[in-house]
């Protein structure tokens, strides 16, 4: 098996090296920028509950200069990485073999196509997950540096673009691309179609998961919303205890809406507490990971039944 994995890596070394180099560059850049943000020492100044020394203004300028100019492009590239890694490592895996006709040789030599598939798929999936997990961890660190004083383990800040979900997203993309490649048998159409279907699929799963997660939301006073909480909606509490939105309040008390200072009713927020982050992240990871495993198993069936091209 070790030799077989080594051969798979050799066959796909161009894509592997390209994605590995991109990942290493992004990870190093993330740590470098995060290190610079932390070195400024702006953390204590971000606490809004205490008064700050005069030096905070200069520190803030330096901190937000980096936070606004360097962090967004890095996070942008980091958010693209799982899609790129999944597509470019997943799509050619079987599609290129069918396109070039090497499956005729491989499947005539190997009595077990499943074993052949495992030897192909496992190293690439491990590479995709390993590389993007490193990227997710770096994104986690960068977002933590961007949000001093926030406990990232209990915060929805950067949800879906950091931590394990980055690797799981890449795994889903890779699994989908491998499967589509086995069906289509051509690399370029596979990449295009996998990008479209994968993005739509992940967005759909995220939407369904969000609806499910929103059922866990709780109402808190606006002033008590934590920095790590996931904000969902805002309501006004009427004297009789009813909660209403902006439109309803306008119908009930139009005069309050015309006040220049805004409605004078207590505001409550619907949030998912930051403490739920790990549980919500784990649930999303399990759902997406399950989908990826189903797709990988489905590809095994396709490989078993397909003509070699």
């Amino acid at each position: 098996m070790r030799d077989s994995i080594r051969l798979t890596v050799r066959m796909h070394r161009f894509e592997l090296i390209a994605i590995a180099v991109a990942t290493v560059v992004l990870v190093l850049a993330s740590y470098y920028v995060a290190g610079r943000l932390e070195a400024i020492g702006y953390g204590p100044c971000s606490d809004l509950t205490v008064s700050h020394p005069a030096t905070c203004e200069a520190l803030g300028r330096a901190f937000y200069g980096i936070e606004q100019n360097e962090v967004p492009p890095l996070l942008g590239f980091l958010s693209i990485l799982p899609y790129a890694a999944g597509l470019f490592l997943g799509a050619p895996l079987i599609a290129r073999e069918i396109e070039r006709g090497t499956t005729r040789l491989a499947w005539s030599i190997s009595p077990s196509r499943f074993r052949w598939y495992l030897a192909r798929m496992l190293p690439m999936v491990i590479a995709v997950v390993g590389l993007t997990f490193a990227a997710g961890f770096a994104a986690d660190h960068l977002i933590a540096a961007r949000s001093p004083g926030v406990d990232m383990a209990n915060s929805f800040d950067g949800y879906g673009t950091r931590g394990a979900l980055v690797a799981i997203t890449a795994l889903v993309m890779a699994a989908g691309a491998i499967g589509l490649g086995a069906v289509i048998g051509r690399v370029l159409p596979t990449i295009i179609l996998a990008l479209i279907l994968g993005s739509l699929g992940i967005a759909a799963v995220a939407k369904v998961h969000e609806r499910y997660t929103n059922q866990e939301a709780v109402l808190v006073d606006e002033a008590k919303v934590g920095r790590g909480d996931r904000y969902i909606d805002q309501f006004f509490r009427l004297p009789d205890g009813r909660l209403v939105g902006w439109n309803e309040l306008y119908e009930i008390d139009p005069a309050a809406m015309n006040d220049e200072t805004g409605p004078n009713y207590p505001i409550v927020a619907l949030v998912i507490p930051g403490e739920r982050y790990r549980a919500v992240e784990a649930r999303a990871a399990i759902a997406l990971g399950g989908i990826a495993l189903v797709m990988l198993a489905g590809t095994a069936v396709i490989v078993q039944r397909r003509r070699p091209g």
Partner: protein
Amino acid sequence: MTAVLETIGLGKRYGRRRWALRDLNLTVEEGSITALVGPNGSGKSTLLKAWIGFERPTTGRLQIRGVDPVRDRAAAIALTGYVPQAPSLYRELTVDDHLMFAACHRPGFDRSLARRYLDDLSIPLDSRADELSGGQQAQVGLALALGTRAPVLLLDEPLASLDPLARREFLHVLVNAVRAAGSTALLSSHVITDIEQACDSLIVLGGGRSLLAVSIHEAIAGHRVVGEDEPRPIDVIAVGSFPSATGERLTLVRGSGGGRAATLEEVVIGHLAAGRGHRPDRAAGKVAA
């Protein structure tokens, strides 16, 4: 003799109408080297792919050493060494990597045997596949098939893109290996002259049907060629008529009298012509004197 490869009423249809093979009944005897000859689209590749489990028959069935490749593809592949039509090597890998690949995926693959074949042909093991000539790539494909030590070799037009020397070398390796191992080979090809030297038996396919299945010796001894203006014996059966290289109209006949001895190429062409409907006397089935 035992039939190693067998088809019973085999048919393969692509789409709704196009039959690549139709009601095909064939046997290939153990220990033979059999040539499978036919024009493009006659079903040669489909037949070979069906035996290795790459194509599922639409009708009928087939066996390889008693194993039905539809029901047990893994067992059929384990019995088979297959050389695909076009060289199907991994261009990123070296020749030695291919041997390693085969050793990883094929239980019992004899890497040293395959290496020896390649060494004899001076094919460098450390060369990448895309650096090899077409002939060398075909030889690597053959070495991989021979390294499986499979009792049955299926070769799908491996000679098509080779120059005469490379063809000769390929056949030399194939014949020696098959004779030494006592295995059975079925070789599809267009190159009749090479077949005559290398093969024991001949199967001619046309339009997805078997037009002729005999030993090479019988094929040559049992046919004569009669020219347009020559007197034709009354007791021979006409097979098909075709033009000679000089434009003269020739007729292939079954029998031992009249005309001149047919070459293997003329036997094949005559049967292919018959398969296309170029029979000189389709109604009577005999050539008049």
